[in-house]
């Protein structure tokens, strides 16, 4: 079984800083991480490979040269190889164009039976790229997988949790599966694999290598237009009672009691 795992390098949400004047992200290479849900997808692929030894995992990413780290990390965790689509022409691509580029890479380096990725990336939070790739490649897609099982019949099942129930969806390969956090963490890399992954070449390809013209990729080809960026305004200020104020605990308890008696905040 050939599995492709799609991974994106994103800013670490724990240490992300915004330029107070422009409102844009301050990007620091020390704060770049692999999108956590993509690592969960890789974890799911590695667990399949442990159960089915004939499995081969390819890690695929699109991004600047620094995103090579994300692929080396994936290789340390179990991917046999990494493929980075790295091309200035691709800069500014929206989800639609990103899906076109990644689908072309998957066609070039495939065929893949199973394409796994995170449900969404922690920077864009759109959740669009996985389904768009499936549409592009004419594959089935299931999203929000909290568990992934291979049945004896060769079919696959995922569980996905909705607000009211858990759905079990059965499907055949080839397919695209977008995973949620519940699918479990990625394994820890071993030092042996880490050392191998440091030195192993990562294939770098351009849009042209994938048969895409410059006017088909990047900002210009992207139908999405960012018209305005708004900062969320905190609607609820809350009430702060500092423990260093007199009778702070008594006052906090009294406020909570009053809220409970009122039936909670409206």
């Amino acid at each position: 079984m050939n599995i492709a795992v799609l991974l994106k390098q994103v800013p670490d949400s724990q240490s992300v800083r915004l330029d107070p004047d422009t409102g844009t992200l301050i990007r620091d290479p020390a704060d770049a991480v692999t999108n956590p849900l993509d690592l969960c997808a890789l974890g799911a692929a590695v667990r399949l490979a442990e159960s089915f030894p004939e499995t081969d995992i390819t890690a695929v990413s699109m991004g600047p040269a620094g995103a090579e780290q994300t692929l080396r990390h994936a290789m340390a965790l179990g991917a046999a190889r990494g493929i980075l689509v790295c091309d200035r022409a691709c800069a500014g691509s929206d989800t639609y164009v990103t899906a076109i580029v990644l689908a072309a890479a998957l066609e070039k380096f495939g065929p893949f039976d199973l394409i796994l990725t995170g449900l969404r990336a922690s920077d864009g939070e759109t959740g669009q790229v996985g389904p768009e790739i499936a549409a592009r490649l004419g594959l089935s897609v299931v999203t929000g997988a909290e568990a992934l099982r291979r049945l004896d019949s060769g079919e696959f099942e995922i569980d996905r949790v909705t607000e009211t129930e858990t759905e079990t969806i059965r499907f055949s390969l080839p397919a695209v599966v977008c995973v949620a956090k519940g699918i479990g963490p990625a394994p820890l890399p071993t030092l042996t694999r880490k050392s191998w992954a440091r030195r192993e070449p990562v294939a770098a390809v351009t849009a042209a290598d994938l048969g895409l013209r410059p006017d088909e990729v990047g900002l210009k080809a992207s139908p999405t237009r960012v018209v305005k960026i708004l900062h969320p305004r905190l609607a609820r200020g809350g009430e702060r009672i500092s423990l260093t104020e007199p009778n702070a605990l008594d006052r906090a308890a009294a406020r909570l009691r009053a809220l409970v008696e009122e039936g909670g905040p409206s």
Partner: protein
Amino acid sequence: MTKYNPVTPEIARRLAEICGAPYVIYRDAERLEPYSRDEIPGTHYRRMPDLVVRPSSTDEVAAIMRLANENLVPVTPRGAGSGLSGGAVPVFGGIVMAMDRFDKIVELDTANMTITVEPGVIANDINEYLKPHGLFYAGYPMSVEMCQIGGNVAENAGGGKAVKYGVTSRYVLGLETVLPDGRVLNLGGKLLKDVTGYNLIPLLVGSEGTLGVFTKIILKVIPRPRYQHDLLALFPTRGQAVAAVPAMITGTGITPVSIEFMDGEAFRQGCHWLNDPLPLGRSGAILLVSVDGNDPETLADQCEALGVYLKREGADEIYAADTKAESERIWKIRRSIPEAFSQLYPRQSGEDIVVPCASIPDVVAKCGELAAKYGVAIPCYGHAGDGNVHSRVCAPADWSDEKWDATLPNLLRELYAEVARLGGRISGEHGIGCKRKPYMESVVSPEFLDTLRAIKNALDPNGIMNPGKIF
């Protein structure tokens, strides 16, 4: 009978005059109770204070000390109460002086690389404050998210980074201290060298609140390393894991920032507590080795070099973490071990023995021997790089309090005798407090104790400052 006086309504009234009535807790058992204990599991080391006072200025602390000294009322200073030796427990009642209102970062002096803080500042907050400046404070107790810096200084806290960065005392450059008679003693400053008279700062650091109350602390800060890589090496046996430590350091010439030792049982309980499915095989012992620096490629090279020696000494598998998420995953398991055991065993004693590093296998073997002899479990974990082993004596759940109370002192005497024979001490970083006080005479010389008492008498002739501790 004690020589001390209880807090009278008149003393309580005067304390309210000094600090303001809202900052005095008196005759309110429910609100006094949290100040009767620290983080030692169980109920053995608890004592209600007569009164809790929460001053906010050096003048107030000085006035409280004068009042207490005149009236022979004991005063126990208290930080966050995260201690593990009963240091903040008011064993003779009296006044607990909570320092939580001393919570200000007074000054960051980047030109001199110092930060001046009040004692009630949370240790972690110092580093959060320093982070945007590219600096950090290298003291790192394991309770970093709650403990206060004043408590760290009073106990000379160690923790996980001592191998490379040393313990709290290395970073204390200046102290403002209110003495037991209310005088204010200023020591040191923003100086890296100072031999002007006796060096009293190291005497006060680790004095467990028995010589005075800190009201201001000047700390040395250093450039913050931007990256940390961690190795988690699984060994079949404890002996192999411990033997790998000197082999790895001398073989590579690399000083890791941390070298943590956990026996297999301790690590498994930590994983279980966190529901972490990390595959551990049948490992008998685990080393967590961390390196830090500013170049990730150099750190990767160092990890590979250290890995060669870890494998050579018998490691079956080595995991390598070089992302913050992976690093945090591993360290979270390490930090969860005490909590995991606290939930498992209602009766237990957390030990803090320290031995010359090469003797760790001997003391761990002794723990195994004592566990079999007394029918208890003694998982071991701790700081292999500095010889500080946290053995945790755990009674089976069906033991009664009576059986536990009768057994533990005998077991500890045997353990401490072996520790002393190996050239070790009974506390590396938690302190003696009231918990280990009964064992002091058996592990240190009479001359040492005499010297401690002479110093104590010189600074606190009435013995009101945190009595019942150390000796």
